[in-house]
């Protein structure tokens, strides 16, 4: 149980760091774009891509924050069951493992979904019209 408490604290810390990264990277790029707009600087492909990467970073980190919150919830349910009836612990461990695995898979799917074209640098630029 003590170990689970430590894991829970570690997850909370990781979540807090990620929230700070989202905020700081957003602020940083907003300052850069405000400067460019104020000085009427033209945006080129590279700057446009850099600005859009921030959006992708935010989505990626938000997806892992969601996964962390889901894991914390599963750990909490397990801890509660364990406290109430230690004989249920074994069954609860199996359920916890399944939930953590499902959460991890969901987070991995989101990593791929929210990457846009950033992970395929050579992909041909294309807008699809229906």
């Amino acid at each position, binding site marked *: 149980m003590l170990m689970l408490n430590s894991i829970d604290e570690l997850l909370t810390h990781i979540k807090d760091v990620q929230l700070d990264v989202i905020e700081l990277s*957003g602020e940083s*790029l*907003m300052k850069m*774009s*405000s400067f*460019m*707009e104020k000085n009427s600087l*033209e*945006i*080129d*492909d590279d700057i*446009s*891509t850099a*600005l*859009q*990467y*921030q*959006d*992708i970073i*935010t*989505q990626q980190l938000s997806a892992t924050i969601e996964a962390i919150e889901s894991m914390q919830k599963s750990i909490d349910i397990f801890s509660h069951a364990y406290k109430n009836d230690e004989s249920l612990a074994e069954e609860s461990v199996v359920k916890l493992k399944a939930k953590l695995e499902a959460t991890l898979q969901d987070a991995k799917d989101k990593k791929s*979904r*929210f*990457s*846009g*074209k*950033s992970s395929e640098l050579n992909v041909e*630029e*294309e*807008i*699809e*019209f*229906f």
Partner: protein
Amino acid sequence: MPLVIFIDDSETALASTRMVTGSMPIEVKQYTEAQVALAEIKAGMTPDLIITDLNMPVMNGFEFLKALREVPATKRTPTLMLTTETKPELKQQGKALGLTGWIVKPFNPAQLKQAITRVLRLPA
């Protein structure tokens, strides 16, 4: 000038679209929340083109699109999805909801301009 509205919960994404479209002969309005844009549309705003993100809190791009199509004035307003999502099934869902097209982030500035020019039939 034609009115183009952009909806994206990311301020930096909106900043990049603002800078890209700054020199175009269009009026641009931007929203970080789809439900706010929808409320203005219901109150009488009639955009000529809507460019929206998909994954947004409170109201996502598909929910917005469904609600948009229920407003008589915007039943057929051209709408482009600008998103990190690349899944074909999501594109199909968008198409079924009457989307005009799908742009994957990060977008190329010249191609975004071309898409707007094409949909609004602006002089090239």
